[in-house]
């Protein structure tokens, strides 16, 4: 018996993989049904549904980039402290000192790429009319995931806390100040006035809620850090699960009827 065979016949191996190597038709079907990671897929699929010229692979690429962002992001958290005192210095260290400083490049370019691929995914789904019944709801989930991707990228933009970061977030969050009703300088904010007491002030409006203080500072850094590392990824994970589940339940990848 060769070494490979010995391993594959061992009790440990068999306890993990509950079928022989997927070399014949039966085991190629069984592997899809018994492996946790593979069970996202169906067992068989129309040839057209895996043609790259049809799918562009953009949904899959986006999901892969999300995984890359998760792994590099967790590793970056070891090196980064979200405080005014340390944030910028830790990024400087990642650039100049830390051995695995390239993690930051991977994370940043992966994030830009993810924004692009998620748009391309939406573009493909629209152009093939794949949002049409019975996939209406999954398109809606997809739009929310697209929004969450942008918010993830936006919240991460602040974390290096350099000039680029703080002013991009300032420009972005200034919009919230102009929200109708809820913004300090927005139309109809006077509606939320009780007697002489103004409910919407520069310390209670939508912008203040977003950035946690009057100007982008340490509270903002904290809020964006928590959102970036915990809040938004959790929301994305949940919606991704629903998104993938619905792809299968709505009849798999789209194609002509």
């Amino acid at each position, binding site marked *: 018996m060769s070494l490979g065979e010995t391993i594959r016949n061992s009790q440990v191996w068999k306890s993990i993989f509950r079928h022989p190597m997927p070399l014949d*038709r039966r085991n190629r079907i069984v592997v899809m049904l018994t492996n946790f990671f593979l069970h996202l897929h169906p067992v068989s699929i129309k040839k057209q549904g895996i043609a790259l010229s049809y799918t562009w692979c953009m949904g899959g690429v986006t999901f892969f980039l999300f995984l*890359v962002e998760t792994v590099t992001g967790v590793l970056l958290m070891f090196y980064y402290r979200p405080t005014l005192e340390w944030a910028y210095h830790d990024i400087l260290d990642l650039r100049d000192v830390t051995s695995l400083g390239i993690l930051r490049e991977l994370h940043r370019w992966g994030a830009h790429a993810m924004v692009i691929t998620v748009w391309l995914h939406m573009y493909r789904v629209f152009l093939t009319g794949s949002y049409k019944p019975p996939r209406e709801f999954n398109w809606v989930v997809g739009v929310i995931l697209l929004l969450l991707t942008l918010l993830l990228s936006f919240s991460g933009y602040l974390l290096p806390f350099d000039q680029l970061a703080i002013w991009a977030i300032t420009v972005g969050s200034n919009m919230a100040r102009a929200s109708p009703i809820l913004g300090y300088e927005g139309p109809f904010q006077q509606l939320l006035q009780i007697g002489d007491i103004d409910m919407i002030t520069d310390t209670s409006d939508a912008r203040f809620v977003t950035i946690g203080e009057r100007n982008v500072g340490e509270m903002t850094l904290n809020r964006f850090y928590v959102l970036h590392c915990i809040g938004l990824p959790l929301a994305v994970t949940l919606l991704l699960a629903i998104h993938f589940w619905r792809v299968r339940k709505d009849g798999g990848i789209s194609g002509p009827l």
Partner: protein
Amino acid sequence: MHGHDPHFYESIQGFLGSYYLVLSIMNAVAALYLWRRLGRWLEAALLVVLFGGGFVVLSGIAYGGGTRVLGLPQSFKDFVNANTGPVIYTLGTTAVLVIFFVFRRFFTKPAVAWVSLNLALLFMGLSMTDPNFSLIVTKPDNVPIVGLIFLLGFFTWLATYKAVLNDDRLAQGLPPLEKEDSEKVLVWPDLVYTELICMIALTALLLVWAIGLKAPLEAPASSVKTPNPSKAPWYFLGLQEMLVYYDPWMAGVVLPSLVLVGLMAIPFLDFNKKGNGYYTIAERPFGYIIFQLGFLELWITLIILGTFLRGPNWNFFGPYEYWDPHKVLALNNKDLSQFFWVDLLDSGLPKAPSDSGTLVQLGYILKRECVGFVGLAVYFVLLPPILAMTVFRKFFARMGFIRYMLMSNLLLFMAALPLKMVLRWVFNLKYIVHIDEYFLNF
């Protein structure tokens, strides 16, 4: 050149040399494919000689230190800088998209598409020797957008190419191409291996990208030193560009929210059952055109404008123009109320006596802005029923009241942006309704 690196031409030698070399290899591979797989040796030979050889020569010149001659003529660059502006840019991109759409049968021919790609890449390479162009395009966070432009170009070509093929087949009563491949295959190995290869290729690409291009890190944050221009992250620059035409509450809050609502509403508004699961244009022209207008013109080209062509003070700068912070543009925009009360009726704007109560002041404001309110009422309230009785007659019949009203209002909001742009360019119109007292400017 204003204060640019005196060694600029030397600094781009290596990059340009490799750039042209890669383009040459790209054409060689394409020629090999044409020759071996398709047996079209004549086209293959042409490709090798014309583009493969041409790019090798350019690459040699660049590596040899001749980057100075590999540029566009100064007169051309001056002409472009002097003659571009938001108006030309917007009308130009729209016109290009319309031409591509109308003559899609011609432009999607693989030969035409390949030559166009080569010419676009050549133009890009020639522009890179301009210090101002190079400076803005190679800003680390802008590099992805250059990638986005080429990716969108490629995928739009691919989708249109397949749609044209399918439309021909459908016209002949044949099923779409996608239907031909409805034979089933096992996911292991066919799909699983594709995914694995994709993941490896993508990892390699990300690593090369990460090694080749440093992530930006500027000076430490300072709340007193405002950079000029201050820009949002690139994917929001379309919204920042809208600030030129709308106040923040519209450009930053209402319109983006409506974009999301509108996107989510698409499957519930599009009652056309055809075109589900294959590329086609002929079977769903209305949905296709509206989406392309919204995505390519109102989202992507505005981002490109906001990123590459908006400089200090959010002024427009040509692609080869130095971003001069002292460039001054005369702004003499006028409100609709001024046109009406001052220019037309030759009286001052109605103004409430300073000691009057809130209601009186409100009355005066309404009087002052009455023309704008009437205009908005006609646009948002009167126009949907008029459209329902005329151009959207069939839509209204198929969709019912609520769905039709939602669609027409979303479309009207979407059209509000280009309309406001045109009004600004033609009449210097600032606001249709201008109520600073309540931050309500439209």
